[in-house]
């Protein structure tokens, strides 16, 4: 069997259930792959590890990060996208009266500056606002400052931060201001491989793709077992938190093309739109050739029965 590894963007959790399930169920073994799953962490750059050949595959940042990485000269290709819609939203307390982007004016709005800020900029632009109309502050991993009401608005992923807020009993006191409602979509959790590996070992890449998609489908159809598998990988996790995470994540995986075309589909038109926005904010110098950055050929090869519900 071919020894390969997958680098995740974060520690083992339900966000990566598909991969853990595929491994536990032997889908990778069946495809002739001896896969090791390596967790990620803060300041651990998945793109670098995959581009340098240290890890074979990577589950990395958003569709925009692929473009940013390629512009910096990292020879990476995206072969699938897990999350088919923007996985995060902006949240505000109901009693603050904020219900839409226009209400951000004069408020303190927190966002991650990990690429997420461009989504906010685009939302503001689509509402006809300038960045100077509000105070934008950087947000950290913790939701504590928002809970302490140090910010009026903060970003939250559906599958993690929002659940954290809900777990603290804030669920029904929040208003969500979703990027998708403003026509801003940034898909995330891209599956990456280096150009070199893709060119030299296309069969292995295909096998990886097949197994992964099978794993995700199995995970979403057997969520309890999937959580068991994830918990086995990292027993100190909080089970309730993981269950909530998988529930939310399922929606993101099945959103948009995830249902119409199948799991891990690459939604190029949306990516192109997102790219135009990044170029507009000078985050990217120029539009790139998307066909080089995104290679849907492996996904296409996967039998439809495996990728569709």
């Amino acid at each position: 069997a071919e020894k390969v590894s997958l680098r995740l963007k974060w520690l083992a959790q339900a966000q990566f259930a598909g991969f853990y399930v595929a491994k536990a169920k032997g889908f990778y073994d069946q495809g002739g792959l001896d896969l090791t799953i390596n967790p990620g962490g803060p300041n651990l750059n998945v793109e670098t590890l995959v581009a340098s050949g240290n890890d074979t595959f990577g589950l990395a940042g958003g569709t925009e990060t692929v473009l940013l990485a390629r512009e910096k000269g990292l020879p990476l290709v995206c072969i699938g996208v897990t999350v088919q819609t923007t996985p995060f939203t902006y949240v505000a307390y109901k009693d603050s009266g904020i219900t839409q982007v226009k209400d951000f004016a004069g408020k303190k709005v927190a966002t991650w500056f990990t690429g997420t800020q461009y989504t906010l900029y685009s939302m503001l632009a689509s509402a006809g606002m300038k960045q100077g109309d509000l105070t934008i502050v950087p947000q950290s991993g913790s939701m504590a400052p928002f809970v302490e009401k140090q910010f009026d608005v903060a970003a939250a992923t559906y599958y993690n931060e929002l659940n954290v807020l809900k777990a603290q009993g804030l669920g029904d006191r929040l208003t969500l201001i979703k990027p998708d409602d403003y026509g801003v979509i940034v898909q995330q959790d891209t599956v990456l491989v280096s150009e070199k590996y893709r060119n030299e070992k296309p069969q292995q890449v295909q096998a990886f793709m097949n197994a992964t998609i099978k794993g995700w489908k199995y995970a979403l159809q057997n969520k309890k077992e999937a959580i068991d598998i994830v918990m086995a990988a990292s027993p100190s996790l909080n089970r309730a938190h993981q269950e909530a995470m998988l529930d939310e994540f399922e929606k993101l995986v099945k959103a948009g093309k995830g249902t119409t075309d199948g799991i891990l589909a690459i939604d190029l038109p949306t990516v192109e739109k997102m790219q135009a926005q990044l170029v507009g904010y000078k985050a990217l110098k120029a539009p790139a050739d998307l066909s080089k950055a995104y290679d849907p050929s492996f996904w296409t090869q996967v039998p439809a029965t495996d990728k569709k519900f």
Partner: protein
Amino acid sequence: MVAKRKLSASPVVPVVLSVIVLLAVWEGAILLFRIPPFVLPSLGAIVQHAFTDTGRLMAALLATLGEALGGYALGSVLGLLVAVVLLLAPPLERVVMPLAVAVNAVPTVAYAPLFLIWFGLGAASKIALVALAVGFTMLVNALHGLKQADLAAVNLMRSFGAGPLKIVWRLRLPVAMPSVVTALRIGVPRSMIVAIVGEMLGAYAGLGRMIYESTQQVDLLSVWSAVLVASVASMVFYGVLVWIDQKLVWWR
């Protein structure tokens, strides 16, 4: 001949030489092992990037340096004060030292979330983190130094009717000076690092924030140049300290 001699005797020469060796190894490794720039960029590229992005880097540096210096000063003074207090009250030492040890053993990064809650995302939380890290090193070193005084000399001071504070001031502190300076030296790089790590976990400004965000956006040159700036700043900080130390060698 004279000029040559002076040059070889100057303390600058070995430093420059070793820095040159370091650079040569760095650039040589890149060429020899064909290390791609996203793993290890050439130093030239990093410096160049630093110069094109001076504004952002300097603003970040200023924020970090402020936190580091503030925490360093606060931690050093507090560490020394606590050391003196513990020295004067040995029963307190038996309780406080294990507590201080336990508190210090908890990684700074583990407190960071709590400190961010307690002191907010601004400079205060980072200053507190740095003060804690630097303060402990000072506490351990200073307490050791203060206890180094010859018991017979302490007795002499007592025979003059000197109270514990006078003994500390005129005997124990001078004896502890080398230990205190050692702590000050170890504290310099620590203060910068802790400030940076604190910023990575939540901050409005600073090199740590820049490093974290640039990593996430695969802007690795920005990461390297921020680290370079942090290192250079620490070195300057350290150099100033060594200079002051050498100016104050009267007790040796």
